[in-house]
């Protein structure tokens, strides 16, 4: 029999706020254990939650990007369960009235375009982390992550294949990263995905028994987990065993298997109720419009504009619009440089090769776009050579140096004084009789060697066109 896989995803995304959602601790990743904690986020009595409005802004942003309806009144609710990484033994989440509902995200696969429904997006606080210490054979708790704001994006069960799931996740990640809602890094846990999966005979309308899988921390693990779980479901149906029950399962990527965690009977009762410390939040039109106005132009729109209005090639457009950071730098730099095309080239050639040498990615590039634009302008207008500009670029990136100052300090401006250059050309011609002879015998390439020695004499700052012209004149004159 042919089977259809039915998948819905719950994607948790850590929001890119400076501070936590209900206290003022930093939410930055990578601090020493328990550096970012206060009495509130480690569960001490007496502190009250105060909502970080930036987290709500980002929740609304995610909702607008995914074409959701923004609820005009949204509430925070408490979800109770015991676990050592949850210091209050309750998590503040949105159960009764989430910030966004009823949206959709368009994905594209080989089969074409398709819209995946978004059931809801809700805000919540993250839990801490347990770390096992082999040295003392004990489990330690790190509360740095406790209270970091999250959105959980719940899709409809509209996905039918691994290919669609990956397309959905990649699209979601691209959009959220572009709008700076989150850095969406699966490997660091700032994006996490639970897979709800069932299978049914092809053509059937009735949904099969659903299982939820957790603990996949890469796209490839998600793909493997779906393939394994779908096969397990189909086997169970074909063999007619009753092993298929509604349950939560943990994916183990090393063994390539999923294991039962808890089923419907042993499932916890989370005893949700509205948090009396957090009054309902009213989101008015003005608030929504303010967020709408701050939404970035999305990559597709930018790409169209870059090609049709700025004259970039499709290739360089694709490379730049893959990163919000490159787009931002590009858009601020090209009005200074005067040439969108040259600016794009500098970004995707010189800047990218610098980043590659440091094993960084496009999002990591930190450069003052005004200085970059100025550097490119001076190169275009012939004030410095491209070679010199490349060396200056490194200083601009690493020390935020002012290109004009470096040029002055290091004497990098182009040498184009004809008298000076002519003297050097004449000396070079006199010093290289062999090359001169070769040139005169028709080996025009020999001119390159003489050119090189002249440029060396000028420390690479000679105006290549002037050198070229004078050299040719001298060689042709003395024939």
């Amino acid at each position: 029999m042919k089977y259809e896989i039915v998948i819905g995803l719950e994607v948790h995304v850590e929001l890119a706020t400076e501070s936590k959602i209900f206290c003022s601790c930093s939410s930055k990743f990578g601090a020493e254990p328990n550096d970012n904690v206060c009495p509130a986020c480690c569960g001490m009595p007496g502190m009250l939650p105060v909502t970080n409005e930036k987290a709500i802004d980002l929740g609304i942003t995610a909702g607008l990007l995914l074409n959701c309806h923004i609820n005009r009144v949204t509430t925070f609710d408490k979800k109770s369960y015991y676990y050592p990484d949850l210091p209050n033994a309750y998590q503040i989440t949105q159960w009764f009235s989430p910030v966004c509902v009823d949206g959709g995200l368009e994905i594209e696969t080989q089969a074409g375009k398709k819209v995946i429904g978004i059931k809801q997006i809700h805000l919540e606080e993250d839990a801490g982390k347990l770390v096992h210490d082999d040295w003392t054979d004990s489990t330690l708790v790190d509360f740095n992550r406790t209270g970091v704001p999250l959105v959980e994006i719940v899709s409809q069960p509209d996905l039918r294949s691994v290919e669609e799931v990956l397309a959905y996740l990649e699209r979601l990640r691209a959009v959220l990263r572009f709008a700076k809602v989150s850095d969406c890094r699966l490997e660091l846990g700032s994006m996490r995905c639970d897979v709800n999966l069932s299978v049914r005979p092809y053509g059937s309308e009735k949904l099969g028994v659903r299982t939820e899988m957790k603990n996949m921390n890469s796209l490839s693990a998600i793909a493997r987990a779906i393939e394994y779980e779908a096969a397990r479901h189909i086997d169970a149906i074909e063999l007619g065993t009753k092993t298929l029950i509604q349950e939560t399962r943990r994916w183990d990527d090393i063994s390539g298997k999923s294991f039962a965690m808890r089923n419907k009977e042993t499932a916890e009762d989370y005893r949700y109720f509205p948090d009396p410390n957090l009054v309902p939040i009213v989101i008015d039109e003005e608030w929504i419009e303010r967020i709408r106005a701050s939404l970035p132009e999305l990559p597709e729109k930018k790409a169209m504009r870059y090609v049709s209005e700025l004259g970039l090639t499709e290739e360089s457009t694709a490379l730049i619009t893959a990163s919000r950071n490159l787009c931002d730098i590009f858009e601020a730099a090209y009005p200074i440089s005067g040439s969108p095309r040259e600016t794009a080239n500098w970004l995707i050639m010189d800047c990218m090769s610098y980043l590659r040498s440091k094993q960084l990615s496009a999002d990591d590039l930190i450069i003052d776009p005004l200085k970059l634009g100025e550097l490119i302008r001076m190169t275009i207008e012939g004030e410095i050579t491209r070679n010199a500009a490349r060396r200056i670029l490194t200083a601009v990136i690493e020390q935020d140096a002012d290109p004009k100052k470096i040029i002055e300090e290091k004497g990098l401006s182009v040498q184009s004084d004809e008298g000076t250059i002519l003297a050097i050309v004449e000396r070079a011609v006199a010093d290289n009789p062999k090359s001169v002879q070769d040139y005169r015998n028709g080996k025009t390439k020999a001119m390159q060697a003489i050119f090189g020695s002249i440029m060396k004499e000028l420390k690479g700052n000679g105006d290549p066109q002037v050198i070229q012209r004078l050299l040719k004149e001298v060689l042709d004159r003395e024939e």
Partner: protein
Amino acid sequence: MKLYITENTKRNDKTVAVDDTILVEGMPSTAGSKMLGEFKPLFDAEVISRLYNTGFSITGKSNVGEFGLDLLGETSNYGVCLNADGTLAGAAAAIVANGDAEYALSVDLNGTPRRAATLQNVCFIKPTYGTVSRHGVIPCACSAEQIGVMAKTSVKAAELLSIIAGHDKKDGTSLPQMKYDYTAADNATGIRIGIPTEYIEKAEQTVSEKVYRFADVMKADGATVEEFSLSELSFVQAAWQILLCAETCNNLSRYDGVKFGYRGNNSKDIGELYTSSRTEAFGLNAKFAILYGSYVLSKGHYESCYDKALRIRRVLRNKLDGIFSQFDLIIAPACSKLAYSPSDVVNSLEACYNESYFTALSNISGIPIVVCGGVQLMGDSFSENKLLTAATVYERTEVGK
């Protein structure tokens, strides 16, 4: 007589005793519980900062029953506070009555300070919910608990209240008004007073006599007094029990033996650590609130219990609008009798529930209360000045007698 859990030896002449459910940095703050043991908070409650900033000193942490959940402090881990005649005292009110501190800050979670003030014949004012910051209160029922002030007279209580009241951005339910001006009018002329008959029927005669005595003083000063029926009180009491226990259960869940406070012995795994810590450290009242609260929030009971209680709370608001369009204030007993022996509260759970009949209305709705002359005066939200007017008139008459 165990008045204080922690006593401060350094004092000035502007003294305040503070319930042990309010955090004071550097002093153990235990809510009278074994669970919090020697817990020393890392910060002062907002009210404490405001007191320090205006030159007050803290005489110590008044003895309270476990998490403030009991009748008059009888479940304190540090021993019960009794009067000379062996009856229950209510530590904060006793401290003020015997002059050990000029004022006391007391958390009205389930009516305890109102009963204590009645028994000790001091004044207690609990303002409208949201007036005083709850930042630094060891929480049980966040939607209702409110810090109030005890003093020998209503004028003094109002003085201290005006110092601690006002917006605090650290409390999301704190009302926006920055300053409150609490002043009583000269006389009770024209004040319309109601007395709910259901309260009178439930209280002992000694208590209802106090209510009528208060009413007579008001009438003599130009007020009108009328009895009326408030038949919803039994629903209010039941709904409040649900809300109180549900929120308390949730707030007590943070005490798990992992991070601070009491940790159970000899546990093999995390499940046993939770169980032993909570079994060994929580007393009867806390355990009851946890079990009852879990039940009313659980799947299958949420709709019929918790959600229904929330609806009663909302409907009650309309009812109160009606009542307070008819009356400026209500006079009622704050408790069923004027003395409790420890044996009265052996089964403290039942006694607490019975007594909440008198106190639940203000907790569930957040309306202000002034206890004076052995009765409680209730008014609509922000009617503190009317309540203070009635209290001042009564105090003046009684002193002049």
